[in-house]
């Protein structure tokens, strides 16, 4: 240990990252305050509404009961929603895999990568429900429009996720195969796909969870059938909160099972 020499504390230099973070936090805070003044409540008495919500929540969670559908109909509805989620995940994965190969920078040409990435960014920017409604014009409301619309968004998401997983593959091992005279297909089949496989699986599973949720939403907002549609009817048509409770439990049970499986697989990385 050397004895101290300089006796006054130097000034602290400017830190861009911390300054920006503080700025963002303040900005979001101000936006939120503004948001509260702009948030219209449709003339509902807030105190009444909150106490009503408390009542409704109690009914929903503690006294669920089916009324307009039978148990087997509920199961079929749940099956339809799961089926929609599953199909669009499979389609999304197939398309996603192909186009991700065309957009991962370490295996695809730059021009193609830019093209595919730009295109998928736009596809992802459009909310799924609007995709479904667009397809519904030519295919009619129903499972065809739902599957097509959801597939678009699902594929857009998986292209990005897969491409990032491919790009994370060790450049050295690709170089090693290239040095050995392997062609593009060899590299994709022997290095890129096997190395990225755990990531691909966890992304796909994550997307299945999202697609299941989306399938509920499409039933409610875009006439895609399934449990979402049943909920929409219970909420807007029959005004039956107890039946809503039954549907909510059905969704919760399936989603929690999926979550448990995902935690078991737990190779899932954080996604950005």
């Amino acid at each position, binding site marked *: 240990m050397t004895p101290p020499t300089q006796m006054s504390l130097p000034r602290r230099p400017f830190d861009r990252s911390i300054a920006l973070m503080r700025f963002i936090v303040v900005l979001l805070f101000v936006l939120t305050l503004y948001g509260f003044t702009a948030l219209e409540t449709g003339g509902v008495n807030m105190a009444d509404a909150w106490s009503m919500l408390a009542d409704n929540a109690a009914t929903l969670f503690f006294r669920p009961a089916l009324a307009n559908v039978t148990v087997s109909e509920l199961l079929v509805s749940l099956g339809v929603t799961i089926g929609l989620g599953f199909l669009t995940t499979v389609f999304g994965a197939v398309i996603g895999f192909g186009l991700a190969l065309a957009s991962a920078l370490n295996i695809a040409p730059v021009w193609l990568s830019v093209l595919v990435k730009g295109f998928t960014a736009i596809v992802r920017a459009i*909310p799924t429900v609007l995709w479904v409604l667009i397809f519904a014009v030519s295919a009619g409301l129903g499972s065809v429009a739902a599957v097509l619309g959801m597939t678009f968004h699902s594929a857009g998401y998986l292209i990005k996720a897969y491409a990032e997983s491919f790009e994370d593959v060790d450049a050295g091992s690709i170089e090693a195969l290239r040095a050995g005279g392997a062609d593009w297909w060899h590299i994709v089949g022997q290095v890129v796909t096997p190395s990225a496989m755990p990531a691909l699986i966890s992304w796909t599973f994550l997307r299945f969870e999202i697609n299941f949720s989306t399938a509920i939403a499409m039933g409610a907002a875009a006439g895609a059938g399934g449990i979402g549609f049943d909920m929409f009817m219970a909420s807007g048509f029959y005004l039956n909160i107890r039946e809503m409770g039954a549907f909510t439990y059905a969704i919760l049970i399936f989603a929690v099972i999926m979550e448990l499986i995902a935690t078991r697989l737990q190779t899932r990385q954080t996604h950005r």
Partner: protein
Amino acid sequence: MRSFDFLMRQRLAVGLVFLGILIASYVAVVVTEYDVVKGFQSIPKAVIWSSENFYPDEKSLKRLPKIIAKMQETLVTAVTATTCAAFVGFLVAILGANATRPHWVFSIVSRAIASLFRNVDVSAWSLILLFSFGQSMFTGYLALFFVTFGFMVRMLMETIDLSSADTIEALRATGASPSAVITQSVIPTCMPQFVSWTLFMIETNIRSATLVGILTGTGIGNLFDIYYKSLNYHAASLVIVVIVIAVLLIESVSNAIRRVVLQ
């Protein structure tokens, strides 16, 4: 011979997985009554129809100010819901994370709450909330808040446990009070991730807000629904253009922020 067996078995396993997925897909097609042929036919049909009808024309441009106003309304709802949920979520995550919880019971309660709020879809929350709050922006705000809250609690609990367990131990060893441990170690360590997740949820919630808007009769989603149902496809397509621009803009801004903050 053994390695050969191993390779064969591996190939067999992969084949079985694919076969399983294929069968499950077939079952899904049957259950959802998805018409595969019609599906394939619909894509070119939709493309032709879109190119003929689904583009903004001059007349629809007159509606642009209204569309932008509704877009702004939706953006504000999404941002407000996200920030509030992120803040409350952070508090609950601190109570629930293994490294900071006051008692293990808090962990179980936090996890259960997070799971409940996150796993019920935002559309389902909207439908539930409609019962008590009616068709208003506030209903949408609450629905987005619930789902974001659940997501944030779960993600931040993981972040706290992964990134600050070490420093929490060190500060405890100096005799720091529990609140000082949180402000001096947990918050500085998790802040970048926290900001990053918040931005991510803002991006997600702008899209969700469109869906919620259709259900609660507010914002840009409702406007699209009105144009769509009145067959005013030019105006509806303009809505989509505005959404795409808004989402891409916010995505690129938040990516830029993330690059600096996470460095």
